[in-house]
């Protein structure tokens, strides 16, 4: 269990052994003496070395443990060939890193020689190499997000006009519960990148989610979400072409009034709270609906309003 999270992460990143292994190769020959090996390990600060023959083929591996074992038995004048381990577990440079990680876990070895398609030794992989590779990748991801945020948050300053408005449009399909909330997630991320206050982003996300789910639950043919962002405010518009809300006053004002069908209520919708939640989160809300024609909901959230940010949501 303890290794699962890293492995899952590695799989997601599609890392190959060749990307993270150490290429600078230190090798010994079978004829190398153990005294020479000891000096090599000490000066290069390594604890295991692949053994190659005259033609460069990998024929064994020798570790600090092998060396200690030999010295304990007084074999100070022996050679690498006499004490190396001949059954070498290797990985291919094109193997995914999670395959290598599993080999480390299964075998308990400290390093894996890396071979190419021809079986030639091209590098060595340690657990530390994997960790370093992952760390670099995660940092790169964080940096990408930071750059994205920086760029987006300066858009209203960088793009010169008398009035700049960013318009984002999303289609919402009827009864598409699987993707329910995805448009709102994207709007939320856009606002975060644009540098909006987290409390304001939260209110926008709640209002947007409720309205998005209304499109999914109630509409005949789905609908469209339009998010208009300028330097001062976010305007969210939700439009559909039916069926329309018969008793708009009750839907907007009466807590618990809901027209959600029973099978959808079973999933935790239809508490009769959606529009009320939206009204609480919005600085302005306007809704028009006509049975047989459709519904248009417009929400305005001010992006720089300390008094509205202090509200409950």
């Amino acid at each position, binding site marked *: 269990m303890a290794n699962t*999270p890293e492995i899952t*992460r590695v799989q997601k990143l599609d890392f190959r052994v060749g990307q993270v292994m150490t290429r600078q190769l230190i090798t010994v020959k079978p004829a190398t003496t153990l005294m020479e090996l000891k000096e090599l390990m000490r000066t290069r600060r390594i604890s295991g070395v692949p053994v190659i023959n005259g033609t460069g083929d990998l024929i064994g591996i020798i570790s600090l443990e092998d060396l200690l074992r030999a010295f304990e038995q007084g074999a100070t004048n022996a050679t690498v060939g006499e004490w190396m381990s001949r059954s070498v577990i290797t990985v291919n440079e094109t193997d995914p890193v999670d395959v290598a990680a599993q080999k480390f876990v299964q075998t308990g070895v400290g390093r894996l020689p890396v071979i190419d398609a021809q079986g030639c030794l091209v590098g060595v992989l340690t657990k530390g190499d994997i960790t370093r590779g992952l760390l670099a990748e995660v940092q790169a991801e964080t940096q990408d997000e930071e750059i994205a945020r920086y760029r987006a948050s300066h858009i209203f300053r960088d793009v010169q006009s008398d009035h700049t408005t960013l318009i984002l449009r999303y289609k919402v399909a009827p009864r598409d519960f699987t993707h329910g909330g995805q448009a709102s997630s994207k709007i939320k991320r856009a606002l975060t990148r644009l540098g909006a206050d987290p409390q304001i982003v939260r209110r926008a996300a*709640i209002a947007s989610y409720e309205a998005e789910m209304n499109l999914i639950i109630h509409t005949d043919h789905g609908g469209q979400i339009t998010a208009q962002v300028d330097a001062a405010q976010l305007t969210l518009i939700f439009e559909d072409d039916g069926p329309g809300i018969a008793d708009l006053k009750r839907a907007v004002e009466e807590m618990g009034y809901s027209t959600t069908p029973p099978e959808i209520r079973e*999933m*935790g919708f239809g*508490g009769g709270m959606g529009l009320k*939640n939206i009204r609480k989160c919005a600085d302005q809300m306007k809704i028009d609906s006509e049975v047989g024609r459709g519904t248009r909901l417009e929400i305005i959230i001010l992006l720089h309003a300390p008094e509205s940010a202090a509200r409950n949501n």
Partner: protein
Amino acid sequence: MIVRTIVQALDLQIVAGHAALERPITGGYCADLLSCVMARAKANNVWITLQAHPNVLAVAVLLELAAVIVTEGAPVPEEVKARAEAEGIALLTTPHTTFWVVSELAQLGVPAQE
């Protein structure tokens, strides 16, 4: 307190989202009605519910919840597991009731904040 702490203390099963086990928990919220959760649950809360369909994760992501605990052994569909994994939300299950979970969390010191 982090998610891993409650996983161990309550012997919860990790269905998805191992990557989120180090997230801090600031409090909790219980409801099976999604609009209630949207209105009241706060970022880094743990949400205890009987619901286990994809919209639970949509809510958890939007609210930046720390973890979702599905109680009474309610089955979690594969698509929900996959989404939790992709979104990095710790999705945990237990055969116990919601009340049992809340009672245990209270003893562990998860604060009741409103």
